[in-house]
């Protein structure tokens, strides 16, 4: 009731204003735009309204741009400037609106001298509506479905017993070598699962590699030490190492005190691990997880003590440091493939094959985008065909891939 009353007052105010203008002296300026309509923007979060109007009679002509305004819910009767559009354009999408509010809109034509036309005003108030599905993410939804579908398909395919070809990854082949070396030298194995918590996928990937390292260590009766920088990681790592010792048939060799918490503080953790490395001189060091500035400090210390080092991370900025200081480095994708590669289980190997479908989609996107932009440049952006190619490439980049 209150809202209706405000709307009536609001409309009365607008029309009385317009009347005064129409009955008064001629106002210099271009002809007014007409038939302004507002509609809810489809497939959105409920924060956009689409406007459409008839162009001014002086467009093309004296119109320099159109100005768009929205009503101010906090101050009925007044309008807030939203933006301008070029002449010849009769559509505009207003963003960042509040779903709880109703809005009026107006559009005016403005000439080069800054003279403003009479406004075209929406006659009814409108509120943006939130849809059940976010249409902006529809292309991503389809890509997700294809990707997930392919991973699931290849997992089932692998379960049927058909062999899958996986290329050799030197860094993972070196796991057995590193553990064997530590056993021969009678020294420990150090495993660092990164410095992030269990909500980081790289930590989970690191823990899966730990399960393999711990299993081999249990078979060789070697000591694996896992200092962690998060309590939850410590708990998960303990469970994993214990399971590995059990699988290797040596549950009695498991010592939970070798998997322990140090500190959450990045450099405090590094100081501890570095000191421990210098004192105890582990023969093999594994760095598997999310790392930041500490990557080089740890890897260089390991290098100094002559340990065989294997690193794996998905932090692009840290990869050069690991490559420079470690014997083997699992770069990004290889790190995530480690669990499947080391386990050799058909289910997991199938997921790697499914990942290849994702690569095909990406490669196709890159080729199509490059092709469209090249054609657009060759034909010329001034021609309609060239513009169409460039627009299509832009759509691919800004809508489908965003």
């Amino acid at each position, binding site marked *: 009731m209150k809202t209706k009353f405000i709307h009536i007052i609001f409309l009365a105010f607008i029309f009385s204003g317009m009347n005064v203008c129409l009955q008064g002296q001629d106002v210099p300026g271009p002809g007014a735009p007409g038939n302004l309509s507002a509609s809810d923007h489809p497939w959105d979060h409920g924060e956009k309204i689409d406007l459409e109007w008839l162009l001014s009679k002086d467009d093309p002509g004296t119109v320099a741009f159109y100005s768009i305004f929205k009503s101010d819910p906090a101050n009925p009767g007044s309008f807030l400037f939203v933006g301008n559009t070029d002449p010849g354009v009769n559509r505009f999408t207003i963003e960042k609106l509040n779903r709880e509010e109703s809005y009026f809109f107006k559009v005016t034509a403005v000439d080069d001298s800054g003279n403003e036309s009479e406004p075209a005003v929406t006659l009814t108030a409108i509120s943006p509506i939130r849809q*059940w*599905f976010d249409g902006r993410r529809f292309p991503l*939804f389809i890509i997700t479905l294809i990707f997930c579908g392919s991973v699931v398909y290849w997992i089932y395919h692998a379960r049927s017993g058909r062999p899958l070809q996986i290329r050799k990854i030197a860094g993972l082949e070196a796991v057995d070598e590193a553990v064997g070396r530590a056993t021969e030298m009678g020294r420990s194995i150090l495993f660092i699962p990164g410095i992030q918590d269990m909500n980081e996928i790289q930590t989970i990937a690191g823990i899966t590699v730990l399960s393999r390292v711990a299993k081999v260590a249990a078979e060789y009766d070697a000591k694996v030490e896992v200092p962690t920088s998060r309590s939850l990681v410590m708990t998960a790592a303990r469970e994993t190492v214990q399971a590995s010792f*059990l*699988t290797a048939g040596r549950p009695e060799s498991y010592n939970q005190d070798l998997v*322990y918490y140090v500190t959450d503080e990045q450099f405090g953790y590094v100081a501890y691990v570095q000191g421990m490395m210098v004192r105890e001189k582990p023969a093999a060091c594994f760095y598997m997880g999310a790392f930041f500035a500490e990557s080089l400090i740890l890897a260089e210390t390991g290098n100094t003590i002559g340990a065989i080092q294997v690193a794996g991370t998905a932090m692009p900025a840290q990869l050069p440091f690991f490559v420079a200081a470690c014997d083997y480095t699992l770069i990004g994708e290889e790190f995530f493939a480690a669990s499947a590669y080391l386990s050799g289980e058909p289910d997991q190997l199938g997921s790697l094959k499914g990942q290849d479908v*994702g690569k095909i989609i990406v490669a196709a996107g890159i080729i199509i985008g490059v092709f469209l932009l090249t054609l657009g440049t060759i034909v010329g952006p001034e021609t309609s065909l060239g513009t169409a190619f460039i627009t299509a490439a832009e759509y691919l980049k800004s809508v489908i891939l965003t």
Partner: protein
Amino acid sequence: MKRNVPLLITALGGFILIIAYFIPATQGWGEVAAIWFDILASIAFILGGGNLLKIHLKKISDKRVGWAYSAITLAAFLITLFVGLGKVGVNPNPLYPDYGLSGHYREIGSPFWWLYEYAFKPLTATMFAMLAFYISSAAFRAFRAKNIEAILLLGTAFIILLGRTFAGVYLTAWLPDWMSGLKIENLTVFIMSVFNTAGNRAIMIGIALGIASTSLKVLLGVDRSYLGSGED
């Protein structure tokens, strides 16, 4: 049971959050899940503190190598915990002058603030500063011209390093405009924006696909190695 329940929670939570990403009404659920995780991690911190005490006390009692460091660690831990939780030396909040613990624990001049400013920060800065020396030693090893790849790396690094200095700009300033592409600062920009960006993007695409595939394996329960043995 010990494995199936966490697996069920993981799968349910993960798939719900994936679907929520595409439904406007539920897009905030991801943030709620993140808050839940923070609460869980905070509780687990007690576990970490307990473990820290146990490990270092054992080390001291066994008089193992480096036990003195453990003693220092424990002393630092307990002192910081005491002055932080007890808000030692903190003045009450002016709004609640009758409540001794109403002040802010990091009040300037308080013992906790003092420990942070004059012990923690310098120690952290010291560790970070060591990075400069490690970068030098790693670069020395990486840039040895052993083979074609190493020579290419050395050449590229030389151009980039020189291009980021005034000397590099000065050295090629004499080149005429039509050869401006060969000026060292322009070569640096070209290498960084073309070769470096292309290589980085290739790695990033691989990482993105790897993350998606690993997440799916975890959600579907294909990879359970992080869940332990499942024995009660």
